[in-house]
């Protein structure tokens, strides 16, 4: 690139200074508590509850597709990311396309949830919630839509409980090969670190530990976030969007200790998901026994669950019909934000409109 002329450089510096002045004004407002807008604002109603788990149904006006969608969040982050902000909400998109949308909110685990296991989630909560969804929506089948660890739970639950009548299963950033999960997973796999060391007095993995493990995978994220904040300070809308997603990405919840130990034993050390054979209770669940179609969506820029992490899914599923979609997005960017929306338009269409998630009675 040829060097810029001095006048052009000065003009650029001048422009940068004037932008910085605007940013500084917003920055002061930000520091003094500028309201950043609410998250998860699409109206919803609690329709079922079990222990700390709540099933919500979003406003059901204009349902055009017969098969309801059940959104299943990962167990370490909060589910409002599915409905982050008006104009940047997966729920909003799905409702606009005429789907009946349900959300499974795990709540915030405490000491009484520390013994929640894979069986609690895959044999109890998800199947019961699926039954509630079918009953409330008056549908014979449903679509499971899992994100990250939520997608893993959906796979195991659906494979182990054929009575759930799952028509389609969508997995976003589904971790299968836990060997590629970074330094902490390696330490746990090699036995250099004991899962017990990561539990707090409630018997759960505290959010701070999860956050630190994630930061080891993305060490430059805090710097990039601050730089992004600085760039976004010149525009209230951009600032609000950025704050919402950064707020969510650091808003972790505790992971039940027993489940964490199972994740370490079965998935990290045992590679159960790679082989497609997951012990659940007293039986062996084979992912290849899934009776539904599966759509796996990965983000090319996802540093937490990179595409290689999901690659073994095809082998694990065997003859199950698997569609794969690779998007130019990061972990949360798979469905959040205006830029992601543009990037994912083709993906969303395929996910939600064209042929995948449609019900039999459309």
């Amino acid at each position, binding site marked *: 690139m040829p060097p810029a002329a001095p006048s052009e450089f000065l003009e650029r510096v001048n422009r940068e200074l004037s*932008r910085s002045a605007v940013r500084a004004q917003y920055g002061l407002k930000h520091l003094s508590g500028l309201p950043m*807008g609410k998250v998860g604002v699409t109206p919803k109603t609690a329709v079922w509850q079990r222990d700390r788990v709540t099933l919500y149904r979003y406003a059901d006006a204009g349902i055009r597709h017969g098969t309801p969608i059940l959104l299943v969040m990962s167990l370490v982050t909060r589910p409002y990311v599915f409905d982050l902000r008006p104009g940047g909400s997966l729920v909003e998109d799905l409702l606009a396309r005429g789907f009946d949308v349900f959300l499974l909110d795990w709540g915030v685990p405490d*000491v009484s949830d520390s013994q929640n296991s894979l069986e609690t989630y895959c044999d109890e909560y998800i199947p019961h919630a699926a039954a509630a969804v079918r009953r409330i929506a008056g549908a014979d089948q449903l679509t499971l839509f899992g994100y990250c660890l939520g997608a893993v739970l959906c796979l195991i639950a659906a494979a182990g409980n054929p009575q759930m009548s799952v028509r389609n299963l969508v997995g976003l950033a589904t971790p299968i090969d836990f060997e590629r999960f970074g330094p902490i997973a390696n330490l746990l796999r090699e036995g250099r670190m004991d899962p017990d060391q990561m539990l707090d007095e409630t018997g759960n993995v505290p959010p701070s530990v999860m956050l630190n493990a994630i930061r080891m995978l993305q060490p430059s994220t805090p710097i990039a976030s601050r730089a992004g904040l600085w760039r976004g300070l010149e525009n209230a809308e951009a600032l609000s969007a950025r704050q919402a997603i950064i707020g969510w990405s650091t808003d972790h919840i505790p992971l039940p200790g027993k489940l964490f130990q199972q994740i370490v034993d079965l998935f990290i050390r045992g590679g159960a998901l790679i082989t497609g054979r997951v012990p659940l209770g007293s039986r062996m669940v084979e992912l290849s026994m899934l009776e539904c179609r599966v759509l796996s969506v990965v983000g090319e820029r996802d540093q937490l669950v990179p595409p290689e992490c999901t690659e073994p899914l095809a082998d694990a599923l065997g003859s199950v019909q698997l569609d794969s979609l690779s998007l130019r997005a990061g972990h949360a960017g798979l469905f959040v934000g205006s830029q992601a929306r543009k990037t994912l338009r083709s993906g969303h269409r395929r996910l939600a409109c064209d042929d995948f998630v449609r019900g039999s009675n459309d």
Partner: protein
Amino acid sequence: MDSCVATVPRKLVKPVPDNKTSLVTAGLGAVDTVLGSSRDSVVRSEEFAVAVALASRVRTGVAARAQHLSRKLWHTLNLPAATDVNRLLTQIGAVERQVRELSNALSDAQTREG
């Protein structure tokens, strides 16, 4: 979000037009490119793994030792220590869980019958 826009004077909302990459962005991009690969190799290196494992063990060991000492101190004064409270918390959690399971079993049975 809407309230955010509403509380900000209009003159602040208007961004300064610029079609070129900002100097800050360009600078950060360059730094990230230079440091990115070495950063990744450090995080994935054996030495880093050893350091993290060691730090974790030291932290756990120090915490256990501190807990032991403070427990002795509080018990000398005939007062409960944090570990006693935590043990009670765990027991309450276990009882709460049992009640919950019984309640769920009852509810499931009623659903099956109904």
